[in-house]
């Protein structure tokens, strides 16, 4: 007997199950987290006597490449979810696996970028711009890492639920996807703000 209601099925008057509302609340708080950081960025920039153009310090082509990777991983994430809705577990695993690989690739490129900066003696302490750059992308990278762990769990041990409770498992992948797309969305704003403006 399941004790807590609406873990899988939607409640009639709200039209949602618990996890759906939960993840959106979490994302709302994430909006405020990154919102706070963006506000800090604007505040510091408005007060600064001069501000470097991102592209003159950072590599735009590399970041463009990374942007495309992340967008691509969002698509594969969505496909892994629709695969489950089509009852195709093999396809699900394939797409989720690709999502994870793309995420790892993103991190690899990012750490290459970091080491590139370090080798030019550019550290967080070098300037306010570099401080913002490292902190914001670092925090974003932590979110990517979190996503990799969650998705890795659902690719591996967590996928056992597919046999016992497929509907709930599909919901979980949807939730994981919502988080993943959000991380993508944050990058979509980080990219122009840090690299292009």
């Amino acid at each position, binding site marked *: 007997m399941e004790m*807590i209601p609406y873990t899988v099925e939607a409640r009639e008057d709200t039209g949602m199950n618990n996890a759906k509302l*939960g993840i959106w609340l979490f994302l709302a708080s994430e909006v405020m987290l990154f919102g706070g950081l963006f506000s*800090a960025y604007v505040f510091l920039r408005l007060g600064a006597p001069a501000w470097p153009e991102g592209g003159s310090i950072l590599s735009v082509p590399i970041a463009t490449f990374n942007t495309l990777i992340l967008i691509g991983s969002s698509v594969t994430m969505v496909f892994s979810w629709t695969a489950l809705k089509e009852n195709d577990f093999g396809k699900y695993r394939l797409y989720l696996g690709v999502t994870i690989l793309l995420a790892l690739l993103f991190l690899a490129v990012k750490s290459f970028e970091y080491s590139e900066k370090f080798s030019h003696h550019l550290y967080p302490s070098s300037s306010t711009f570099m401080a913002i750059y490292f902190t914001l992308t670092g925090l974003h990278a932590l979110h990517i890492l979190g996503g990799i762990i969650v998705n890795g769990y659902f690719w591996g041990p967590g996928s056992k639920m597919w046999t016992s409770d497929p509907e709930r498992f599909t919901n979980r992948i949807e939730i994981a996807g919502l988080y993943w797309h959000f991380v993508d969305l944050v990058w979509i704003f980080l990219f122009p703000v840090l690299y292009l403006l």
Partner: protein
Amino acid sequence: MTESNNHHELVFWRKYIFSQDHKMIGLQYGITALSFMLFGFSLMLVMRWQLAYPETPVPLIGWLLGDDGILLPEVYNSLGAMHGTIMVFLGIVPLAVGAAGNYIVPLQIGAPDMAFPKLNMASYWAYFIGGVIMIVSFFVPGGAANSGWTSYPPLSVIATTGQTLWLFGMIALITSSLLGAINFIVTIVQLRAPGLTWMRLPFFVWTQLITAFLLLLAFPPLEAAGVLQLMDRLAATSFFMPSGLVVSGQILEASGGGSPILWQHLFWFLAHPEVYVLILPAMGIVAEVIANNTRKPLWGLKPMIYSTIFLGFMSFTVWAHHMYMTGMGTTISAFFQTTTMIISIPSVVILSALFISLWGGSIRFNTPMLFALGFLPMFGIGGLTGLPLGLAAADIHLHDTYYVIGHFHYVVAPGTIFALFAGIYYWFPKVTGRRMNETLGKIHFWGSIIAINGIFFPMFIQGLAGVSRRMWDGGAGYAHAQDVLWGNEVMSIAAGMLMLFQIPFVINIIRSIKHGEKVDDNPWQATTLEWTTPSPPPHGNFAALPTVYRGPYEYSVPGRDKDFWPQSDPEEGA
């Protein structure tokens, strides 16, 4: 069926330590938070000794402070910062939300548990870890954080290691609050019993809902600020460090270009909503207790609910009234003064509605009701003394004086803490099946309310005379403060008395668990759902999920033989 069998077999550590039952987690929160409050209060007693009897050895625990037992200025600063931090983040919020909310909300909405039991457990343990980090920070070189609970840079950035631990501790506490907030909102939105429409929701649940939204959306910017300050401290960035800062006669090595004011914005973006986190659940408890003991419906329940919602929203728009003295421009200052005046309206509406609810009731003066009644004027004083602080012209004089300390302590100490006491006395029978002793309760109440006014009222007098807060010598070095220095000893003696008057409370709790008067499931003849289940409620709370037929405070409905009408009573008509 298998479920319930399993629960009888739960081993000790699953039942009491890593429990996922909201009631056990609520109790864990309650015990931990009360211990922290006692600790935070003890820190203040040590400080009050120094303020009343400057540079004399502190009795009893003096040996902890060094050879001569005198509280040194550096340590005073640490104790002050940690008193504030512990009281706010480790005491009141966990008690009001983590304990009272966790235990009562699912019961009041007729739910078997919180929506995410594992998350609930994680939330407690994140809180616990945050607390441990804060405690550990007392033992690192330089002692615990000493830049005030507000941790203003640049001071906090160049402060000793304790500040780093403070930041890590805060991040754990913020994580805990975020997990809790998500859980509360989902629980209240999704798990309400059939028939429990929004306007039938008890006021306490409403206050918890709005509180959860405040925690959810106001804490992340502070988390961001915490990360930035950590970067400043650990990676030598200058988010909050201006260029050319001179420390002890030397220009500080830092890349510069940052802004200390940025920290204040991010900090107060949280910390103003935080004061409503401290007060809303308290108002919720007081409303429950007052309705129950006047045997009348609350006067103006709907306006109270709308006021709470409005208050919650407005609390995001007033934060910079803490920053009038930062050199902010007049336009922005005018904006924040206006919003601050506006936000006082809903508080007044709620307080007035509670006062008017007393009118014409046949009041039962039991201990919970006494504390609830004590809350009303105390919160009134706290609120009204806040208005001058919201106006920049008056704030120039009052800012950072003991007047501010007096103001917000009236709100949180005889305000929120009294409400929490009311809640403890009121719900104790639900948790244990026994009632707390009334005589001890009354001693606790009368002793506390007299002592607490003895502490905080003189603060207004000192503050108006211009005595600054956070002064190790309590103003002795100020010429203009000489006439009000008598207050220091009065306040300190009153603080000692307040501690003594908590003894009957502690005895009462411990004694009543085993020896309190046994009572039935609904000893206060109350209407809300938590009183329809056994005391203590079993795992899963209700034998069968209840259905709700009416509003939360149907007391003394004309034409009925009983003077209360439970929400889940299906009977039709009057």
